[in-house]
């Protein structure tokens, strides 16, 4: 599935819930499905700054696609990481860099997911883009 298609499926799922409580409960559920980062990568090197809770994010390249994994000690943050990974993991660096991530605004958690909140969302996105750029450069050199 493309980033666009995956985004749309996330939007569709969240549109089933009217109540913020149900949306958060669903976000927390999603967190439980996050591809967990290997314990050996839970180090400062993979720690994302800008969040009150700790979030680790790891990326690797396989067959031209970026594979992401993460973990957090806060379940809401883990849910946010899980959302990003669901849409962006398994995509090419180029597609990741070109995506607008507009789905975050459309799932009705926009206030919570605003960049000025100390939830690390902005840092997570930046980090994923950084990985994508690095992998893209590397592939061009080869």
């Amino acid at each position, binding site marked *: 599935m493309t980033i666009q298609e995956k985004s749309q499926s996330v939007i569709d799922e969240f549109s089933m819930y009217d109540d913020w409580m149900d949306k*958060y409960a669903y976000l927390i559920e999603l967190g439980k499905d996050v591809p967990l980062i290997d314990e050996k990568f839970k180090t400062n090197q993979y720690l994302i700054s800008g969040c009150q*809770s700790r979030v680790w994010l790891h990326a690797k390249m396989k067959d031209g696609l970026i594979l992401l994994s993460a973990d957090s000690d*806060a*379940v*809401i943050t883990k849910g946010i990481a899980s959302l990003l990974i669901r849409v962006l993991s398994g995509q090419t660096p180029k597609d990741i860099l070109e995506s607008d991530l507009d789905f975050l605004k459309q799932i009705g958690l926009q206030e919570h997911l605003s960049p000025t909140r100390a939830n690390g969302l902005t840092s997570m996105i930046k980090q994923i883009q950084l990985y994508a750029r690095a992998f893209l450069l590397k592939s061009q050199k080869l």
Partner: protein
Amino acid sequence: MTLDTQKIRADFPILSTKVNGKPLVYFDNGATTQKPLQVIHRITKYYEEENSNVHRGVHHLSQVATDKYENARTYIAGFINAQSEKEIIFTRGTTESINLMATVLESWVFANEEVLVTAMEHHSNLVPWQQLCKRQKAKLKIIPVSQQGEIDLDLFKEMLSPKVKLLALTHISNVLGTINPVKEMIEVAHNYGIPVLVDGAQAIAHTKIDVQDLNCEFYTFSAHKAYGPMGIGVLFGKETWLKRLPPYQFGGEMIDQVGYEDSTFNTLPYKYEAGTPNVAGVLGMEAALRYIENQGIDNIKKHEDHLLEYATSLLEEIDGIRIVGTAKEKTAVLSFVINGIHPYDIGTILDQMGIAIRTGNHCAQPLVESFGLPGTIRASFGLYNTIEEVDVFFAALLRAIEMLR
């Protein structure tokens, strides 16, 4: 006398705000308090009717502004029972007051000497001293705090020696709510000739401050934590000390005679107030302290103690809760963690229910880490908070825990 919270709440327009469709419950008073109409109107009135630069004009408005500004200083000196208004320096707030002191005390703290702070200091009463010690090659020593959140007085006494040049400590902890025995500690420190700076940021709105009774050399507070405006605060310093310490910033207002080669400096308090001051802020601060005085600081303390006691008794019943800070003498601050749940998650869900609390390390990272915690959830009360709000908070907390467990 008990506070008429209903009448008080009518003075604070922001308290009728709705957050996420729910009535706001504002329990983040430790970070900043809301402002009553008396303060808002005072600032507006200044800009509408009195604005002019102080201390220099021959014209009418300048005289009006200067009189109001200096009357405010006199009132504030009285509010904390300073001996004279010369001891009241207006700053941007507690942080600037402490930075000012940590700069001018370069002429007092030297290599191999020591500065003492407690383990429960806010970063703003820790980092300036840490950096002063680094510059001067002096040693910063930390007075230990128990798991209950109390200073170990025996260990404190053992740390005193002629090498110690300053004791800097908080009056009330912003994380633990502990009211420190500052008067007793100052007395002991004085036996060694050690001057004492008290960080009163969390105390000014919650308990009576009498700097002569405390007998501290320096006392600092910010207006915004006492129902006043942001960006204005006070450094109290004993006249004898402020007189002999060097100036901090240089410029207009703080000078006496200026030549191209050299200058002489103004008398106290102007020596420490370079540049055009925040006159509106000072008048707003005066209005805020008058508001506190009208309600009665003892009534406020009684009210907040009651809120704290009630909230503590409810929270203690929660399975897996740990209240952080259980000192005997405590006020207005309730920090806690829930076993297995990150404070950030609780804060996020409570926000959805209109409840403003703070989560994290509360700018006291070394302290929170020493308790082995990633942060705490902190409810901090003000004079307008009510028992009903504590009930709403408690119910919301239970709901959040249920959702997050």
